[in-house]
């Protein structure tokens, strides 16, 4: 008796029967499992890939992977840091000395431990040839430094004569002009600061000179990437005890910044994931739910034959398991090919194309950021095994929960209830007379569709919510995609920003009279020491056609009296920082007041002599001390070295509080010198005017727009002006490389970021496409599954004279009811959610630009509308074809054998 179930267990026999009975539905379910696995894996991987690429980009900008460091760290501090539970990696950087050219420093010489270099520095280099120096006379230079030395074609192993001096003047060994062997060279990212480039020396050089690694900068990477720099700083200061001269800087990690620029915050990412999980979960859950009715009836009959609930459960689980296994297997296989084979190339080429040259260099990066060079192509790994697991687990969970719900329902019902099971609680409540009356007036098919759709309110709500959720996620993705576009950030900037560099200004002002290089201001009168006078500004602006207002960032470069300096003592590293006074207009000052939540100080700040002390993550663990300082006076006067300050030229400010510019909620106000080592005393326009009576006004920068068609010409004109001014500055005896003026052209920034912007847009578009795809899978599978699982019901309707055309129309009506309900949900709750998202993102990203996703809205509306109408039609066409095929086969061969 071959081909029979003689040797099969009853379970297997029933599984076979169930599979055959629900073949079409199970195939839809299987395909849906595969599609859900595929789309969730691809969406999460793409977002992960974008984050990886952003992380990489931020690491290039930062120059290393470390998020925090302790300056002048000792061995004790090092031990303490290494023992911190949240420290994922600790490294050491010794700022050992400098390379000089014609008496001027041009390179900062840094010594790393080999491991620190490999793990924390190398990932931030764009290109590297050779190896880290091992011997005392070996050196690794940047291509920028080599160009400065007129070496355009460097070769590893070549010898170079360089002038080297230790930072510690007490060390005399191995100093002066000497021969170095080039162990390697690298290209570092130009972060625009314009500081000295780095050179790497061997650790052996330290020991040969009789020096130790400590004190050094202790670098730290934390595993708490979801915390911002401020939070990490607070944690660190609560755990380690810093001595005098030691201070801690904690910045937002690259991962944190990538997340923030993409989704606002880790919290938002979690919310996004939860919504996506829910949506994907409900795709499968609802699909299983539509077959619940027929499943329960089927199982009721099995029970009559003596199949226990436990066995029904086993069979149902077995079926769900088989479908899940095959579906996720297929989804995983296709997803892995796409994620591992296609995404990395797309991401590397489109997204980071502008950052790196495709030159087949050595591999840089590590597992965390998943970066690799393969066959000369830039690639960003988007594959993360955890996302694969999540996708697979998600489908498994949905199948398990839906199967569990069916089994629970089954167990609760008696045989009689099970075989007669319908989810028509709502229908039972319908008043028959009312219904007949309605049917006289209305289309009976639409009435039937209403009854079917509302047969189970729970199912109706679940399906409508799921459809709306899919739709909403697409809309949210569109809002985020448009809103975080880097172009928004760039377009918010003025066309041109021209200003004075901190390095030049500080160098000139701190140089005693008479020294070489102090010739810029031969007049000893402090009032005459203006770098960028109003006259210069006017002359500059006269050369171009300016549109709109010209924004001047202005203030003073002060020196503080001793008492005033005590206000700075609560700020870590204040001794190494430069203090400036900057004026903020009424609007900006209002924003600062609102942020500081110090409405009571409004008068002092706006019209008195109050000041906010703006710093960058320097106030770690000193909050209580800082609070005590508020209200104390700070005497300020023009910074002049070597000249006695006239007491009449002093002004007094009142400390109104310390504000951290790195804080996420800190308002977006333009800062003159937004670097780590600048402390800014923010004053109002009234206070600024009072100070003007005693101090010299400095224009730190001017920002302005020009007529669009004039922009290229204006750029050339302005660059020429800046170049000439810098040449003139050099001629006053300044060292090579130190420039007085900088110019930032927004068009250059846009051009530089063009690759990133286009790549980012394409990436977000692809993510949106996958989400749309998932939404389509959701709606289509639900429509088809619904029609398939109600085969017997349609046969019954056929028996009482309802034509197939009418059944088709009834199904279209049902789809339209779901579609209509989803549309209403989107228009009400969905819109509210979009505006909540807008508020949230605007609070997180100053450049976030909300744009109502009307295109995506209409697209989804048309798509869902088309599915509502077309799927039932297509389904019935194929089904009719199938039925007629089966019938013909039966007529031709009536003794057809099965089994």
């Amino acid at each position: 008796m071959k081909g029979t179930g003689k040797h099969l267990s009853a379970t297997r026999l029933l599984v076979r029967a169930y599979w055959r009975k629900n073949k079409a539905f199970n195939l839809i379910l299987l395909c849906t499992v595969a599609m859900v696995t595929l789309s969730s894996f691809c969406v999460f991987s793409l977002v992960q890939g974008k984050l990886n690429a952003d992380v990489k980009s931020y690491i290039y900008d930062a120059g290393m992977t470390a998020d925090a460091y302790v300056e002048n760290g000792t061995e004790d501090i090092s031990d303490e840091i290494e023992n911190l539970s949240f420290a994922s990696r600790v490294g050491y950087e010794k700022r050992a000395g400098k390379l000089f050219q014609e008496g001027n420093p041009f390179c900062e010489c840094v010594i790393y431990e080999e491991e620190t270099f490999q793990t924390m520095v190398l990932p931030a280099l764009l290109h590297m040839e050779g190896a880290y120096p091992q011997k005392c006379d070996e050196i690794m230079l940047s291509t920028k430094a080599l160009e400065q030395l007129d070496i355009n074609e460097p070769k590893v192993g070549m010898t170079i004569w360089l002038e080297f001096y230790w930072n510690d003047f007490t060390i005399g060994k191995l100093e002066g002009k000497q021969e170095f062997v080039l162990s390697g060279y690298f290209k570092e990212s130009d972060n625009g600061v314009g500081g000295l480039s780095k050179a790497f020396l061997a650790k052996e050089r330290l020991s040969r000179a009789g020096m130790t690694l400590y004190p050094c900068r202790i670098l730290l990477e934390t595993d708490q990437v979801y915390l911002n720099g401020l939070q990490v700083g607070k944690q660190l200061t609560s755990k380690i005890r810093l001595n005098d001269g030691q201070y801690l800087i904690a910045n937002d990690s690259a991962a944190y910044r990538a997340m923030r620029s993409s989704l606002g915050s880790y919290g938002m990412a979690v919310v996004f994931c939860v919504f996506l999980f829910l949506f994907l979960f409900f795709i499968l859950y609802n699909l299983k739910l539509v077959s619940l009715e027929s499943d329960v009836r089927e199982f009721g009959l099995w029970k009559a034959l003596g199949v226990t609930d436990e066995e029904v459960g086993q069979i149902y689980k077995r079926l769900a398991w088989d479908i899940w296994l095959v579906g996720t297997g297929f989804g995983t296989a296709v997803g892995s090919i796409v994620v591992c084979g296609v995404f990395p190339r797309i991401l590397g080429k489109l997204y980071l194309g502008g950052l790196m040259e495709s030159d087949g260099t050595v591999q840089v990066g590590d597992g965390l950021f998943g970066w690799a060079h393969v066959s000369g192509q830039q690639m960003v790994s988007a594959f993360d095994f955890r996302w694969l697991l999540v996708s697979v687990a998600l489908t498994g969970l949905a199948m398990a929960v839906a199967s569990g719900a069916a089994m629970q329902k089954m167990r609760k019902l008696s045989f009689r209830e099970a075989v007669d099971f319908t989810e028509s609680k709502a229908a039972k409540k319908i008043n028959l007379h009312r219904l007949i009356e309605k049917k006289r007036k209305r289309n009976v098919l639409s009435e039937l569709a209403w009854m079917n759709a509302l047969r189970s309110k729970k199912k109706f709500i679940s399906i409508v919510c799921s459809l709306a959720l899919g739709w909403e996620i697409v809309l949210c993705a569109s809002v985020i995609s448009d809103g975080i576009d880097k172009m928004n950030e760039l377009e918010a900037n003025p066309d041109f920003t021209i200003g004075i560099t901190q390095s030049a200004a500080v160098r000139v002002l701190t140089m005693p009279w008479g020294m070489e290089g102090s010739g810029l201001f031969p007049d000893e009168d402090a009032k005459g020491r203006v770098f960028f006078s109003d006259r210069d500004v006017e002359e500059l602006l006269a050369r171009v056609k300016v549109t709109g207002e010209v924004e001047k960032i202005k203030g003073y470069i002060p020196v503080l009296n001793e008492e005033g300096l005590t206000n700075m003592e609560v700020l870590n590293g204040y001794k190494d920082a430069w203090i400036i006074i900057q004026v903020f207009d009424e609007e900006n000052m209002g924003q600062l007041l609102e942020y500081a939540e110090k409405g009571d100080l409004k008068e002092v700040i706006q019209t008195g002599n109050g000041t906010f002390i703006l710093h960058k993550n320097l106030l770690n663990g000193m909050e209580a001390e800082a609070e005590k300082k508020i209200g104390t006076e700070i005497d300020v006067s023009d910074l002049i070295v070597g000249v006695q300050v006239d007491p009449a030229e002093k002004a007094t400010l009142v400390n109104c509080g310390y504000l951290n510019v790195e804080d996420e909620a800190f308002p977006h106000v333009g800062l003159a010198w937004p670097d780590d080592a600048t402390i800014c005393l923010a004053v109002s326009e009234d206070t600024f005017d009072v100070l003007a009576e005693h101090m010299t006004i400095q224009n730190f920068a001017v920002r302005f727009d020009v007529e669009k068609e004039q922009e290229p010409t204006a750029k050339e004109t302005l660059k020429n002006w800046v170049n000439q001014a810098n040449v003139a500055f050099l001629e006053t005896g300044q060292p090579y490389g130190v420039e007085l003026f900088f110019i930032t052209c927004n068009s250059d920034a846009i051009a530089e970021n063009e690759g990133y912007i286009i790549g980012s847009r394409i990436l977000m578009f692809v993510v949106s496409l996958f989400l749309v795809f998932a939404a389509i899978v959701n709606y289509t599978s639900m429509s088809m599954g619904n029609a398939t699982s109600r085969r017997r019901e349609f046969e019954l309707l056929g028996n009482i004279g309802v034509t197939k055309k009418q059944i088709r129309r009834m199904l279209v009506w049902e789809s339209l009811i779901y579609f209509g309900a989803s549309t209403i949900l989107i228009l009400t709750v969905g819109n509210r959610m979009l505006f909540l998202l807008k508020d949230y993102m605007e609070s997180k990203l100053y450049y976030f630009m909300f744009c109502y996703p009307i295109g995506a809205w209409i697209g989804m509306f048309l798509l869902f509308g088309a599915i509502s109408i077309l799927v039932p039609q297509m389904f019935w066409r194929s089904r009719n074809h199938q039925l007629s095929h089966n019938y013909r086969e039966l007529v031709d061969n009536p003794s057809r054998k099965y089994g």
Partner: protein
Amino acid sequence: MIKAHGLRKLYANGDNTLAALDEVSFEVERGEFIVILGASGSGKTTLLNVISGLEKADRGYINVDGVELQILLEEERTRFRREHVGIVFQKFNLIPELSVFDNIILPSRLVNRDIKEEEVLEIVDELGIREKLFLMPGILSGGEQQRVAIARALYTRPSVILADEPTGNLDSKNGEDVIRLMKTLGERYGQTILLVTHDERIAQVADRVFLMKDGKMSVSDGKEFSLNDNGESIVMKESGKLSAIGGTLS
């Protein structure tokens, strides 16, 4: 074999309750062929469901083949059913996706009994469906499908066979054949058969007849009987006395 006493089963019907079984008591001996007559909604099917363990009576005592059903949990009643009871449904309830053979052996597989081909063939020969053994039920006639359902009920050799209007979907010729086969095979294998029907002619071949009305039962005490005009009572020909339903006749 089957002992029932004071069985009561109520169903909620809106705000009212309906007694599907109302103090039903009876005894059935092994090998008896019992026909249960009654109008629709009289409680016939509920009685079969309670005997098979598909449903539990709200009150009363029922013992089938030495097993007291009222104290069993649902899972235990299911196990009891598959070991002791074979059911033939009006709508056949064959699994259309399994062949005739697989349908017949399914209950045996549930109790992990070895499948003996000769036993299957013996039954299908008796029922005249040998040629149909590997066909799918969907292409069989109604009579053939019901024979398959009977074969399925008989093959596990249950001590009790319950048939719920097995001829309801058959023409009179097929109906008679099915009843004849059930009686013959039941006698051969010593199986107790309880058969629910509307058809008075079928009742003529029964050992005894149970008449149900509004959940109450009347039992004939001999083979010779006939129904009165309105079908509410049984006239026992041996004793010449009427056995009343609900005590209204005398």
